[in-house]
C-alpha cells in the first residue's frame, strides 16, 4: 500500500463510506498497529470514536470479591519502576493514566476529560504540542484532589535520570507545562505524529505529587508509597506481599458512576501457567488468570470444564527467526559476528530465500500453537483477518531445492549442499521452551529435505535473554547462524521498534551488544526510508514509509516472521472484562463485572 491508497482510505472513512473499524483492520493488514491507525484518522480530522461501554451494572459495589491469578506475582507497585508487565498490572489496580488504548486502537480518556484532537483544539496543527484537559471530580484515595500539578510532577519524576524510572523513555525528551489547575500542555521536541505516549497506557500512570514529592531522584527507593500505592483507580490499596499477593477494596469515591462492581480485589501470584488455567477454567477457584503460555490443546481440554474460557486478544508479539548477516564463527578484529564480516553462506540471497520457503508456518500454527500462534508474513503486526488476501508466505521444499540448485549449491555425497567448498550447515539457537524446540524440529526436518544441515541449540532463557557481556549465548550477541524468539511491540508507534534494522544500531562489542540491530543487516534503502520517516511531518506519508520498512525487512530476509502471538488469558464464563492487546490486561478494570 502506498501513500495515495492510504489517503483514499482515510477519505473514505471521512465520507463514511468505510467504518473506522474496517480502516483499522486494513491498515493492520499491512503492518501498522491499531492505535497508530486511529492516530492517522485523528490527524486527518476524523473525530474520535465514542467508546461504547458494555458495562451493565447499575450500582457501585455489591459484586463480592474479584479473584485474579497472576502466575508471576507483582513484585512492586510503582508503575514507573515496573520491570515487567506483572508489575504494571499490579500498579494498574490503583493507578490510572490520562488515556488508555482499547482493542481497536482507540484512545479512551480515563483521567482526561476528553481525548485531544484537532477539532477540540487539543492537538496543535504543527504536531509540536498536545493539550490535555483533566477530569475535575477526581480524588486520590486519601481524599486529596487530583490536579494538573500531579501530572506535571509525574513528568518531573519519570524524566529525572536519578529516579531511574523504566518509563523515562517516554518523558525525558518532552516538556510539560501547567496551563491551569486542570489543563496541561505537553511540548514535544519535534513534530511528532504519534503524540499519545507520555501519560498514556502502560507507561502513563499518574502519581500523586503530595506523596512522592519528597522522594524524587536519588531518594526514589525510599518512598513508602512504592509499596502502599495511593492512586485514583477503582480499588483502594489494602495489602501487598511482593511476589505473592496484592489486595484492594472498593473505592467508594471513584470518579465514574456505578463503578466499580466488585467489593474487593485480590491478585494472587506464583505457581505456573497450566495450573493457573485450571484454577479458572476447571475448578473456578479464580475469576481470571493472566498470560496463559499454555499449549492450545490443553486450553481446549480445560474449556470443556465449562467454568471458563480462553480469551484471545490480538497484540504486537511476533515469534520470528533471524538470519545472521555476519560471520559468527571467525573473529574479525577480535570480535565474533563483527559488523565488518560477511556470513560465508547466509549472505547469499538464494540461501535466505530458500530458508524462507522452508519454514512451515502453517504446520507450526496447526501442530504447536493452535489459536495462540497465527502464521504470519509481516514483522510489524497482526494480519490475522487478512490472511486470505496476503498469503505471501509459502512452504515449498521443491521450490527451495530449485532455488538452491539454480544458485549453484550442489548436493554432496552426504546429502548436504555445498558451493566452493562451503557447506550449508547452520546452528539454529533459541531459548529452552517446549513450543520453540518443536518449531526448531519442524524447520530442521524441512531443511534436511532441501540439503541444509541444521544443528539445533537451546539456551536457558535466563541466560539467552540477559545482557550479560561475558556470556557468548545471549540473543543480542547472536554468535550463531539462525535464532528465534518473540519480540514484543509494546508501543503502538513503530518508530522505536523499526530501528532494529538500521545500520547505526548494529549490536557490536563496542556498544556492549546493546545495539538493537541484532542481525546486523545493512540496507541503504532501509536507512534512508527510516531517516525520512523520522523527520516526516505528514502522518500519512510517515505511515506509508513504515509499511515500506516492514516490507524491506521481510524481503531482505533479515527476519522470517513465523507466528503472531496474541495475548491469551483464562477468564471465568460469568466475568465480563474488556481486554485490549495495546494496553495492560487491567486497563479498564473499572468496567469489569460479573453476570448474574
Amino acid at each position, binding site marked *: 500500500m502506498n501513500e495515495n491508497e492510504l489517503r483514499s482510505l482515510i477519505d473514505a472513512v471521512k465520507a463514511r463510506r468505510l467504518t473506522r473499524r474496517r480502516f483499522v483492520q486494513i491498515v493492520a493488514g499491512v503492518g501498522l498497529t491499531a492505535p497508530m491507525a486511529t492516530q492517522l484518522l485523528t490527524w486527518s480530522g476524523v473525530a474520535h470514536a465514542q467508546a461504547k461501554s458494555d458495562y451493565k451494572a447499575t450500582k457501585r459495589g455489591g459484586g463480592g470479591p474479584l479473584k485474579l491469578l497472576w502466575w508471576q506475582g507483582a513484585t512492586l507497585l510503582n508503575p514507573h519502576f515496573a520491570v515487567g508487565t506483572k508489575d504494571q498490572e499490579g500498579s494498574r489496580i490503583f493507578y490510572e493514566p490520562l488515556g488508555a488504548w482499547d482493542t481497536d486502537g482507540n484512545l479512551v480518556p480515563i483521567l482526561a476529560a476528553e481525548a485531544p484532537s484537532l477539532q477540540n483544539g487539543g492537538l496543535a496543527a504543527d504536531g509540536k504540542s498536545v493539550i490535555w484537559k483533566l477530569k475535575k471530580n477526581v480524588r486520590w484515595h486519601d481524599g486529596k484532589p487530583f490536579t494538573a500539578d500531579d501530572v506535571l510532577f509525574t513528568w518531573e519524576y519519570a524524566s529525572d535520570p536519578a529516579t531511574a524510572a523504566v518509563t523515562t523513555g517516554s518523558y525525558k525528551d518532552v516538556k510539560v507545562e501547567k496551563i491551569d489547575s486542570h489543563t496541561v500542555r505537553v511540548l514535544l521536541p519535534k513534530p511528532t505524529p504519534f503524540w499519545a505516549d507520555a501519560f498514556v497506557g502502560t507507561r502513563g500512570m499518574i502519581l500523586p505529587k503530595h506523596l512522592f514529592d519528597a522522594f524524587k531522584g536519588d531518594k526514589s527507593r525510599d518512598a513508602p508509597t512504592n509499596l502502599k500505592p495511593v492512586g485514583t483507580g477503582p480499588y483502594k490499596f489494602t495489602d501487598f506481599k511482593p*511476589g505473592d499477593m496484592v489486595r484492594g477494596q472498593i473505592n467508594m469515591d471513584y470518579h465514574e458512576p456505578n463503578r466499580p462492581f466488585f467489593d474487593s480485589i485480590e491478585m*494472587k501470584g506464583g505457581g505456573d501457567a497450566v495450573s493457573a488455567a*485450571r484454577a479458572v477454567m476447571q475448578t473456578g477457584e479464580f475469576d481470571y488468570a493472566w498470560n496463559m503460555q499454555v499449549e492450545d490443546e490443553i486450553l481446549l481440554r480445560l474449556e470443556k470444564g465449562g467454568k471458563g474460557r480462553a480469551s484471545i486478544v490480538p497484540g504486537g508479539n511476533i515469534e520470528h527467526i533471524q538470519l545472521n548477516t555476519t560471520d559468527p564463527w571467525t573473529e574479525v578484529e577480535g570480535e565474533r559476528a563483527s559488523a565488518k564480516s560477511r556470513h560465508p553462506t547466509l549472505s547469499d540471497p538464494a540461501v535466505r530465500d530458500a530458508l524462507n520457503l522452508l519454514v512451515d508456518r502453517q504446520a507450526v500454527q496447526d501442530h504447536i500453537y493452535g489459536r495462540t500462534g497465527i502464521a504470519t508474513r509481516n514483522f510489524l503486526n497482526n494480519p490475522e483477518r487478512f490472511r486470505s488476501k496476503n498469503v505471501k508466505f509459502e512452504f515449498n521444499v521443491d521450490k527451495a531445492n530449485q532455488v538452491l540448485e539454480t544458485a549453484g549449491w550442489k548436493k554432496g555425497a552426504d546429502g548436504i549442499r555445498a558451493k566452493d567448498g562451503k557447506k550449508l550447515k547452520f546452528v539454529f539457537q533459541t531459548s529452552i521452551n517446549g513450543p520453540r524446540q518443536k518449531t526448531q524440529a519442524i524447520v530442521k526436518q524441512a531443511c534436511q529435505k532441501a540439503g541444509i544441515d541444521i544443528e539445533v541449540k537451546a539456551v536457558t532463557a535466563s*541466560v539467552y535473554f540477559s*545482557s550479560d557481556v561475558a556470556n557468548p549465548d545471549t540473543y543480542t550477541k547472536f554468535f550463531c547462524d539462525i535464532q528465534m524468539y518473540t519480540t514484543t511491540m509494546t508501543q503502538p508507534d513503530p518508530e*522505536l521498534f523499526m530501528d*532494529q534494522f538500521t545500520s547505526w544500531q548494529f549490536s557490536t562489542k563496542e556498544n556492549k551488544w546493546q545495539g538493537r540491530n541484532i542481525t546486523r543487516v545493512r540496507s541503504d534503502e532501509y536507512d534512508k526510508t527510516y531517516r525520512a520517516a523520522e523527520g516526516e511531518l505528514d502522518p500519512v506519508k510517515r505511515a506509508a514509509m513504515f509499511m515500506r520498512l516492514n516490507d524491506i525487512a521481510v524481503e531482505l530476509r533479515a527476519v522470517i516472521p513465523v507466528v503472531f502471538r496474541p495475548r491469551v488469558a483464562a477468564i471465568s464464563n460469568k466475568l465480563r472484562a474488556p481486554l485490549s492487546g495495546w494496553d495492560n490486561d487491567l486497563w479498564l478494570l473499572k468496567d469489569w463485572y460479573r453476570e448474574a
Partner: protein
Amino acid sequence: MGKYVLRRLLIAIPSLIGISIVLFTVVALAPGDPFEELATNPNIPAEVRANLRLKFGLDDPVAVRYVRWFTSMLQGDWGFSFVSRVDVDTLILQRIPVTLLVIGSSQLLALLIALPVGVYAATRPYSVFDQIANTLAFIGFSLPTFFTGILLILVFSIWLDWLPFVYRADIASTGWRWVWDHFKQAIMPVAVLGLAQGGSWTRYVRAAVLDVIRLDYVTTARSKGLSERVVVVKHVVRNALIPVATLVFLQMPAIFGGAIITEQIFRVPGIGSLLISAILANDTPVIIAVTFVLSCLVVLCNFTADVIYGWLDPRISYR
C-alpha cells in the same frame, strides 16, 4: 563445657565468612542479569538499564561488591531486592510465618507418624504390620513431592472438588471459619511434605529401636518381670531416640528453608518460593540473603545438636 561451647562458636565464625565468600562469588559469577526483562523490551532505552546497573552497583568488581555487602551486613543492613526494591529482611520476614506454619506442621506430622509406627514395627520385626509399614514408608519417601502434589490436586481438587489448590496466606474470613479455611488449604501441602519425610523417619526410628532392643540391658529389664510397655517406653525408646533427636534437630534449617517444589505447586508464599523466584529473576541480594541465613542456621543447628547430644547422653564428653 563452657570452654567447649566457646571454642565451637569461634570456629563457626571463619566458616561462616568462608561460606559467605563462596556464596557471593558463585551468585555474582552466575550468568544472567536482574534487568533481563528490560533488555527484551525495545521501548526501554539501553541507558535506563545501564543507569540501573550503575545505581545498584552491579558494574563494580565482585571483590568490591562483596566487601560492601559484608560491611553493611555486619551493620544489620541486608540490602534490598533489585526486583521489588524492598529491603531483603522485610521480604524474608513476610514469608517466615507461612513457612513455619506449613513446613513446621508437616515435620510435626512426619514425627507423629514416624515415632509410633517406627517403634511398633521394631518391636514386632517382620510381622505383617512391619511389612506393611515398611512398604508404605518406601513408597512415601521414594515418590517425589512434585508427583504426589499433583496427584493430590488431581484427586481432591479437580475430581472431588473438596480442597482448594491455591494457598492464600491472608484469608478474609474470621473466627472459626478462618481456622477452617486455613486448615483446608494446608491439608494437601502438609500431607505431601509430611508423608515423604515421615516415610524416611519411620525407617530410621525402626532401625534405631532395633539396635537397642537387642541389647543386654533390655533383656535384663524383661527378665526383671517388667511389663512390655514399660520396657519399650522407658528403656528402649529413650535410648533409641538419642540419634533420632539429633537427626530431627539437623532438619530444623529445612523448616526455615521451605520446600521449593511443593511451595511452587500449591503457591505457598514461603521462603522456598521467595528463593526460587529470586533465582529466576537473578535477584542477587535476595538469593544471597536467603542462602546465607540458611547456612547460618545449619551451622547453628549442628552446633546445638552437638551440645544437646552430650546432654542427652552423658557418656559423651567434650574435649
